[in-house]
């Protein structure tokens, strides 16, 4: 069953068209990668799904519900959590407060406590740093915090925008591992990555976006061997 579905979606920034009839589909339980160059429309796709932007044309549905006029907080409430590019950690808030903000819409305190415990288990370093200001964490730790924060919201689906950006290869591997773990636990994942190789290793399927539309789609295992992909995104 489709969790997130884009059909012929157009999105504009002012007069600049960012998505041109983009279509894609992420099924429940899947982990899908979105590949493409800078400016191809990957981030716009995620922003449209999380309702930071609304499409001008086409339909976007999440969990069977049309979300083309939704508000961002409604998407969070519906369980679609977007971990943005650059992590957007609240720098002067403590790690713990950052996590609490992830649960902003969760009214049930017991649930928050339980998820908090889960996140601290999954990412023990956050527990060590819980009183520290978010901005003082290293890039990798901030990425973990961003993911942890998203988990407190209790996502049905997680969208991650370039989680490996600016991280050392070793840390990238750790982040990818955490993402795999999250998926193992039943959360659907949409992953935007510039590091195509790392992304294709952890995902089931992938789309390639060029100039605001998906141009290729396939199983990750096939894509990694596709000469067109190798040429454009993986390098020789």
């Amino acid at each position: 069953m489709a969790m997130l579905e884009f059909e012929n979606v157009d999105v504009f920034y002012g007069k600049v068209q960012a998505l041109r009839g983009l279509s894609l589909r992420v099924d429940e339980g899947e982990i899908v990668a979105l590949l493409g160059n800078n400016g191809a429309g990957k981030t716009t796709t995620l922003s449209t799904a999380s309702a930071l932007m609304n499409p001008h044309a086409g339909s976007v549905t999440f969990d069977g519900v049309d979300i083309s006029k939704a508000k961002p907080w409604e998407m969070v409430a519906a369980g679609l959590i977007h971990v943005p590019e650059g992590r957007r950690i609240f720098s002067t808030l403590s790690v713990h407060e950052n996590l609490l903000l992830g649960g902003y819409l969760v009214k049930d305190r017991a649930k928050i406590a339980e998820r908090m415990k889960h996140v601290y288990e999954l990412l023990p370093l956050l527990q060590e740093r819980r009183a520290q200001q978010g901005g003082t964490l290293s890039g990798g730790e901030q990425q973990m915090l961003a993911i942890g924060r998203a988990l407190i919201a209790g996502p049905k689906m997680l969208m991650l925008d370039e989680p490996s950006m600016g991280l050392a290869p070793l840390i990238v591997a750790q982040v990818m591992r955490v993402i795999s773990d999250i998926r193992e636990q039943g959360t659907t994942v949409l992953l935007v990555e510039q590091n195509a190789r790392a992304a294709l290793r952890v995902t089931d399927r992938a789309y390639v976006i060029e100039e605001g539309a998906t141009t290729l789609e396939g199983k990750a295992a096939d894509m990694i061997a596709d000469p067109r992909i190798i040429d454009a995104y993986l390098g020789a």
Partner: protein
Amino acid sequence: MTIDNSTESIHTVEATAKKKGFGGWLSSIFENKYIGLVALVIALLMPFLIATPYALNIMTTAAIFVVLAAGLNIVVGYCGLLDLGYIAFLAVGAYTAGIIAKAFELPVLFTLPAVVIMCILAGLIIGAPTLRLRSDYLAIVTLGFGEITRITANNLTITGGPSGIFGIPGFLVIGDIDFQNPVIFYYLTVIIVAGLVLAAARLGKSRLGRAWKFVKEDEDAAEAMGIHTYKVKLMAYIFGAVWGGFGGMLFASHLTAISPMSFVFLQSALVLMAVVLGGMGNMKGVVLGALAISLLPEFLRDFSAYRYLLFGILLVVVMVFRPQGFWPPRGAEAERSKAEREAAAFANGLKK
């Protein structure tokens, strides 16, 4: 240059005319090269239509208001620096003219060099320390300077304290012609103001004027082009100050008496309103805005209690629905419309 620009204006006028119907037709009239000249001729003919002392007084005041709006337009419209204490320059000009003319029993015209120098100094004093500040801080600081100027005038003996200066000598007497005669003074004011408006408009279309607009739009990009943004902003301030000073000189000799009450924040706000309503950056629009702000109250006497309330609401409404003013500079028609702002990056979720 000439060939190219004329084709440009034809294109734009055509395009707007087609798109906007009546409004486009109206704006094509306004875009006409000779509209300024026509306006001047109308202004010069006015005394033949109404020459009551009351009407002349109001028209002279309106003309002085136009020069203030033109000066503030340099600062706010061209350079994008919000000055909420602009009236201080009117005060500096008026007091300089008044004090010197009275002390030396000189015709006010002869105080011109002193007025210009004092205004340049005032521009430097206010601008130099503050122009590196962020725009909103700058607004408040200029407001503070405006108030300090008024308070100072209110408390010094040389400025006559709260009662101000009165009995300022006339503007000039040549033989039998006393420029203080209301009709002659009106003509004098109109000519000086027209000259200053034209000069300001021409500045706006020069290298310096473009630099102001570059700074207004994107300071970083302007710096990268080799524009010393700080100096350029300071220049805008100084020009604005000098224009204000001219206004002050005319103001002092028009009224022959000045007091701190004339330089309250309300006045700064009214000048700003003229600039904003007319269309920041477009001299023609600003002149129209100034005339509207200064003359409308005369027609709306019955509503005088609500006058400023309406002005306030109008300011908000204009910013929300037509931030470029009623008559924006050519080529600034579309983008800052409400619809487009709404489309701006992550703006969704921030409205309604």
